[in-house]
């Protein structure tokens, strides 16, 4: 076998390529842990202290659970969203900026593997930070039991996957470092804060309730809250029916994944 021939079948070669990108991405996020892991944990702990303990004690209960407990799923989801997005957008844009993305573009790896590789870095960071934030939240919550670990994990995983693709698209289109901050600042943050992290959208008057249902983050926060608090929360505080939430997240993933593959094929932002 020649070294320049793929070892075994091409799917095996692609799998090795994917493994290589995953190791590179995970090594990167662990190497710079003071930038990638620590800050989101500290920020979310502050949210728990301020909104949960200080303000939450005055709010009382929401849907039958203490306010502190109500906001935990939303805050964990906020970490998952921000970290999956920012990991991929900064890593892929840095690769573009330093031009080492060319290492991948000249290689025989298919576009789908490149995309999956970067997504895996975003998912790894989001789940790691999400778990740490959840652990910290246990210190503030009165209960440590989750309603459904599989649902909780599935929602976190799919949300991280979705926002990893979002970060990838942003990095493809970005031309300078300022461009990678625009979407998180002007789109993600408002959508997250208005996505039912701190309240249930059922508390909103119309038309704001209907408008909120157009916000994709509402579906993720609601599904995650379902996975964690369903057994304690009154049913009117679950904003979106769980099946619908999964379907919406799935559709968003398929749509954005397809868009990212198309953009990679066209070479948008990568090839001249």
């Amino acid at each position, binding site marked *: 076998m*020649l*070294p*320049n*021939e*793929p*070892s075994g079948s*091409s799917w*095996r*070669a*692609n799998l*090795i*390529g994917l*493994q*290589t*990108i995953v*190791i*590179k991405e995970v090594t990167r996020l662990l190497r710079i842990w003071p930038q990638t892991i620590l800050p989101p944990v500290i920020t979310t702990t502050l949210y728990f202290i301020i909104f949960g303990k200080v303000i939450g004690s005055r709010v009382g209960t929401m849907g039958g659970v203490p306010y502190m407990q109500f906001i935990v799923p939303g805050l964990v989801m906020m970490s998952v969203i921000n970290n999956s997005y920012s990991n991929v957008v900064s890593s892929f844009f*840095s*690769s573009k900026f*330093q*031009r*080492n993305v*060319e*290492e*991948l*573009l*000249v*290689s*025989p*790896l*298919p576009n789908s593997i490149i995309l999956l590789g970067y997504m895996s870095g975003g998912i790894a960071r989001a789940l790691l930070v999400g778990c740490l934030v959840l652990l910290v939240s246990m210190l503030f919550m009165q209960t440590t039991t989750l309603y459904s670990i599989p649902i909780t994990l599935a929602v976190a995983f799919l949300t991280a996957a979705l926002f990893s693709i979002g970060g990838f698209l942003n990095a493809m289109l970005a031309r300078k470092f300022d461009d990678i901050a625009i979407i998180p600042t002007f789109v993600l943050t408002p959508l997250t804060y208005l996505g039912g992290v701190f309240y249930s959208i059922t508390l909103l008057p119309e038309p704001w309730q209907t408008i909120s249902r157009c916000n994709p983050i509402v579906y993720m926060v609601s599904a995650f809250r379902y996975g964690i608090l369903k057994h304690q929360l009154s049913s009117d505080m679950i904003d979106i029916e769980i099946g619908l939430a999964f379907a919406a997240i799935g559709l968003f993933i398929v749509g954005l994944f397809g868009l990212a593959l198309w953009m990679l094929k066209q*070479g948008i932002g990568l*090839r*001249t």
Partner: protein
Amino acid sequence: MMPTTNPALEIRNLSKTYRDGTVALQGIDLEVPPGEFFGLLGPNGAGKSTTIGIVTSLVTKSAGAVRAFGIDLDHDPAGMKRQIGLVPQEFNFNQFEQVQQIVMQQAGYYGMPRGPAREQTEKYLRKMGLWEKRQTGARMLSGGMKRRLMIARALVHEPQLLILDEPTAGVDIELRRATWSLLEEINDQGTTVILTTHYLEEAEALCRHIAIIDHGRIVENTDKKSLLAKLNVETFVLDLETAAPEALLVDGYAHRLVDPLTLEIDVPKERSLNEVFAILSRQHVNVLSLRNKANRLEELFVNLVEKKGQNADAAE
């Protein structure tokens, strides 16, 4: 290497127009036989890097066909990419990663399992004299070492075709010579090498076949000997023992006194230098030493590019 009868690189009617309307390539044809040491020369903006970019999938073509060892870029891009190793002009590795990591990752992108990838990485890092630096961050390497790192990275999957875009740009003479012997060694082992360079001395020393590209067209494509045979006049610089008389006459030869002790003289190919010495001797002018004024290929290159430029101007 597996013997093959297909050209190492075959380019047919390749065109590229960038989004801003810049026409970089105007339907070029090139064929590089396997095992060749091929030079692609041209002034800045001539289309060299665009050609290399299309062959290595970094630039999308507007029209035309590209094949490496018979594998078509449009039909089997992954298959074609496996045949090629690229050493770009600018450093394009992650400056924050270690030397060994960079090369091993590239092997992984080509589907090489970790065991063989580690062996190949060691083989090429040793060959490039970088093994001792394997755990050093790439940003800590000197310019020459960074360039060798890029060569090791390009070779780790043992491509049959190695493409180098200005591999010695900005490096000192010693390193340039070391890179040349390395490339000769790689070529001797059967790898086809395509080189773009500004240093015509480099092309003359290394390449057996040379194509010159200008304004997106191939203006010359032939073996080096035939190309140099087209050079009709060579200019020599003569260092004189004593100051030459102001009325110095060297009949039949264009000449000029650079200073009283330095004479530049154009010698047509069909005439002998002995005649020049005889003429000078009759005027009591002794020559201490002589040298070529410029690299021969450089003169030819300038003539070709200028001539084509004038033709293009005339056509407009």
